[in-house]
Every structure is written in structure tokens, then in C-alpha cells.
């Protein structure tokens, strides 16, 4: 298999923060259902990894896995990577224009100023030692600035590690990579797979969610570290011809044309 596996993990962040658990709040997907992955869209995904081998049985290519986290109920990951920053800037620009328009003729009503103050939104502080989040203005789930700590768009969950049997038995070699990919914030987790040992191998994903809390009249991002599990199923089944369904052996060529 030279095609890369994409494994998407969708987190019900609101429920996970409420219950402080990812059990029942994590939905896994991959793009290998047609090759035999099972449990798509549930918390029990088993990702199929069909190995490729030379005639002597040795491994021919390395399968690559990519993990992509997303938050349910948030602005979807299909918006451009710089979307939140762009929105913040556009919003500030509009507010400044309105502020300038207010100051035109001396008297400025306090109602209008406080309306603008409301519009400015809030910028929460990053927790000391917190990782993965860039300080930015709060936006709601439709991309508008908000000052409400109850309406904010959930930041994308951050994968912090991948461990477990599949890693300790050296079936996968996961690592975080920087990427020019505009969709997933320039960072992603990927792994290559040793397909020479068929079997089912569970692994644990370590995830950091972010919760907004009010401390001393200030909004602060608190990180919440949780884990969830999935599995890989490595197979060494013979390849089939996708056009004819034939297995190993000679190609199903028609009998030699009759001698003419």
C-alpha cells in the first residue's frame, strides 16, 4: 500500500470537558473502509493496514498513517488555517472605523462607546506552561467575535503523543511533523508501519483539549489532558486484481485466439 491512510478523530469537546473523559466522546474515521477497516464513525475503529511483500515475503513498502483531530460543534477544519487570525483583524478594523466615526463631532454618547467596547470582544490569556494554543480573540462558532465565555468556538484538539502496544512493539513509529499543509495548523502526527508482523495492535492517543475559565476577572485557557484508544489490523492477505477479482497467479487472459 503506497496510499497514505488518513485517520480523522472527531472529539465531542463539550461532553468530554463536562465528563473529563473521551469515552463515548470520540469518533474515529479512516479512508480504508473499502479495504476492510471496521467501526468507522465510532469509538472502536480498527484501521486495516494491508501489507505489501516481495515474493520472498519481505516487506515491500512502508504504509504511512496520518492523524488529524477535529472538534465537533466548532468551525470546521476546512476553513483556511489563518481563518481565526484573519477574522480577528477584520473585526478590529471595523470597530476602529466605527470608533473614528463616533469622534467626529465632539459629543460621544457613553452608550455608543460601551456598545463598541462590547464589540471589541475578549482575548483570553494562555495558561502558564500551556502548549498548542496561540493567543487570539474569542470567536463564536460562526466566526464572529464574542465576549461570552460560554459561546466560544472550541480550539482544535491537540495530539500530544501516541503510545501503547503498537508503539512499544515497534509496529508503528509515530512522530509529530511540521507541514506546509494549510488545513491542520502546520503540524500533524504521522507514523510508518512495520507490516512484517500481521496482527491487531491497539494504541493510545494523548490529546489536549482547552477549556476557558474565568480567573480574577480574566479569561484563561486551561488545558485538559485526556487519552483515547484505537487499533491497527495488519494483514498479509494476498493482493487481488481490483478489475477482475483474480488472486495470485497468471493474469486471467483469454485463451489464445483460434489459429486463423
Amino acid at each position, binding site marked *: 500500500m503506497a496510499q497514505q491512510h488518513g485517520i480523522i478523530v472527531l472529539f465531542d469537546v463539550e461532553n468530554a470537558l*463536562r465528563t*473529563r473523559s473521551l469515552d463515548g466522546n470520540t469518533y474515529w474515521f479512516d479512508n480504508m473502509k473499502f479495504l476492510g477497516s471496521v467501526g468507522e464513525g*465510532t469509538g472502536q475503529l480498527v484501521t486495516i493496514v494491508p501489507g505489501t511483500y516481495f515474493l520472498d515475503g519481505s516487506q515491500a513498502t512502508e504504509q504511512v498513517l496520518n492523524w488529524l483531530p477535529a472538534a465537533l460543534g466548532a468551525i470546521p*477544519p476546512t476553513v483556511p488555517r489563518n481563518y481565526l487570525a484573519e477574522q480577528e483583524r477584520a473585526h478590529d478594523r471595523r470597530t476602529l472605523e466605527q470608533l473614528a466615526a463616533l469622534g467626529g463631532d465632539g459629543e460621544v454618547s457613553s452608550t455608543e462607546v460601551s456598545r463598541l467596547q462590547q464589540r471589541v470582544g475578549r482575548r483570553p490569556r494562555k495558561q502558564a506552561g500551556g502548549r498548542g494554543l496561540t493567543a487570539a480573540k474569542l470567536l463564536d462558532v460562526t466566526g464572529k467575535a464574542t465576549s*461570552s465565555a460560554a459561546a466560544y468556538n472550541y480550539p482544535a484538539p491537540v495530539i500530544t503523543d501516541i503510545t501503547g502496544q503498537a508503539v512499544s512493539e515497534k509496529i508503528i513509529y509515530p512522530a509529530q511533523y511540521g507541514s506546509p499543509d494549510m488545513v491542520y495548523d502546520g503540524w500533524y502526527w504521522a507514523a510508518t508501519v512495520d507490516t512484517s508482523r500481521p496482527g491487531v495492535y491497539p494504541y493510545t492517543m494523548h490529546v489536549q483539549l482547552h477549556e476557558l475559565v474565568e480567573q480574577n476577572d480574566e479569561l484563561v485557557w*486551561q488545558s485538559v489532558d485526556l487519552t483515547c484508544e484505537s487499533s491497527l489490523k495488519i494483514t498479509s492477505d494476498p493482493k487481488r486484481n481490483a478489475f477482475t477479482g483474480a488472486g495470485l497467479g497468471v493474469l486471467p487472459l483469454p485463451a489464445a485466439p483460434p489459429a486463423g
Partner: protein
Amino acid sequence: MPPRSRQPAPRPARPVTITAVIDPVAALASENLDDNLYLYDTNKAAGSSGFGTPELHSRVRKGDTLLWNVIPLECETYVALADIEIDPQIAEPTRKVYPGTDIVFWTAEVKQDLTKPVPYRLSFLLGTVSTPFTPTARPALTRPGDQGKEGR
């Protein structure tokens, strides 16, 4: 555990988001959206059910704001929610885009408390196919207390 800032509120500040996760490549190859559509919402705590199926039952109340959006499993293939057909006495969804993008979402307000489950129909545009895909299975809005399928 860090302190919680949120107070119990009569109406959540966030909309009830209904997200359609779609495998567009598999749907286009098989011309079957039902097997490649996974619906979820953010109201599991209120009793929504059918998570991960095309027959999601979302628990809603009068006055709730609903928001429908899409997450494609393959970010290089175009997917958009093209239409929502629902009884206009219950909700009248309007098409919007995230400001500054052409990424579509739909919103609606629930106009009345439901007396029975209200099925509705979603249509999606996939890839470069101009005819929308409409799954046979239908999701529904339900009132708190309606029996739905067990949530996953």
C-alpha cells in the same frame, strides 16, 4: 480539576451543531451516500441518538438555534451542504458562509416545541457532480423525551 466558569443557563449560548462527516471519495465511487455519511450533534447530553448514522435524532426545544455544517474525510474533495428540507412550521434553515470564506453552513431557529419526531432531508454537493446527493435515510428533530435509537 480546574474551576468551572460556566453557570447553568436556561439557554445554551452555543447553537446545537449538527455535523455531517462525509467520505466523499467513497460516496462518489459507490454513488451511495447512505453508507458514507455519519451524522453527529452537540446535544448528546440532552439525549440525542443515532450518532454516527444518517438517521441522527437530535433533541431540540423551541428557541434553540441549530447549525448544520460538514466535515469531509478527504479535504481535497469538494463537499457542501446544498439544501435542507424541513417543515417550515418547525424551522426555516438559511444558508450562510463563515465570514470571509465560501465554506457553507446552515442555521435555523426551532419555532415550536415538537409533539412528535420531525424527519428532514439533507442534500449535499460532492466533487464536481452537479446533481445533489440525497441520502435515503432521514435524520430527525425530536422533542426531549422521545424514544430514539440508542446513541453510540
